[in-house]
């Protein structure tokens, strides 16, 4: 569990989902963030011709939709539960209000975003190695 998830836990709405539940789709406006407490979530890209490409699998402790909420962007991938999952949801306004003016919570956000960036670089190395 990340420290930010601890800080924000009182604002989360907890839900259990079966496998195959779509959390958000590519192009959607972010409604908020999902904290993964257990299970796995597939993050997937889709091409113009309908082809899909797995980006990565998110696991417990990770927060989905963070960069989109922070930078006010639409989701650039889709998220679907891969297994049964326990997820916490925090709507965007509540999330931003909680982190605003608090460097310590912000720092946790920065650590999570940094991990997301590094995951992308890992993914790029894997794709390049596989070609």
């Amino acid at each position, binding site marked *: 569990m990340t420290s930010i998830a601890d800080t924000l836990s009182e604002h989360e709405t907890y839900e259990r989902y079966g496998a195959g539940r779509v959390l958000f789709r590519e192009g959607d406006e972010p409604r908020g963030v999902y904290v993964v407490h257990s299970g796995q979530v597939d993050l997937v*890209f889709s*091409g*113009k*011709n309908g*082809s899909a*490409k797995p*980006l990565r699998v998110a696991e417990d402790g990770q927060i989905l939709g963070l*960069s*989109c909420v*922070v*930078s006010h*962007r639409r989701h*650039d*991938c889709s998220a679907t539960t891969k297994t049964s999952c326990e997820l916490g949801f925090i709507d965007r306004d509540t999330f931003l209000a909680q982190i*605003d*003016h*608090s*460097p*310590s919570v*912000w*720092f946790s*956000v*920065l*650590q999570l*975003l*940094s*991990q*997301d*960036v*590094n995951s*992308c*670089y890992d*993914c*790029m*190395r*894997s*794709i*390049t*190695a596989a*070609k």
Partner: protein
Amino acid sequence: MPSPYNLDIHNTCTECTVRAERLFCNMSASSISAVDSIKFTGVYPKGSLLFVEGEMPRGIFILCSGRAKLTTSSTEGKTLIVKIAEPGEVLGASATILGKPYEVSAETIEPAQLNFIKRDDFLKLLGANAEACMHTAQQLSEKYHSAQREIRSLGLSQTTSEKLAKLLLDWCARGGEETAKGIRLKVLLTHEEIAQMIGTTRETVTRLLSDFKRKKIIDVKGSSVFVMEKASLETMVSI
């Protein structure tokens, strides 16, 4: 007195005339003063290696002017350019925040001014200044989405010509200049570097550019590429 490499050098962040246009530096006066008090200004020639993948983080670099390429290497030793960083970007932030080795290498591809902030000073700034945190978060988000775009291009493109077409279209969208001959792109990268951006070989890039030229989709004059048939490139792209 002429400045090094004819760069318009800004020694003081608070007096920088382009600060308002830059995502990270466009902070309140008090926050940018805090940045200014801990930064070291440097001017670097083309080809300067700022940090190397695997090296423990010494701090961050704010790219004030010029451009830099960010590269990573696969376990097989293939080099991939993950991004061409533009003025205003912060380099090395994720490693500096996590205290883990740099995930990429950074090298200037033209003369550049960079402001360096030592890791301890940067972490102290983030610990005391929520606005600096927010601007850093925006920088990291930008890096994340840029990396996602690259993964999409690398992973979903069916052919190398599609990847090259997509790269040219991205350049048109970001910095293309409309001319009577077509959209002019100033390309500072070698064919080898273009190959490293799309995960192929230099020979393939040279062959594909010649092919595009033969079909009158593009023309090449020195370091400029003119995109004459943008629609033809768009039909090649499926993502």
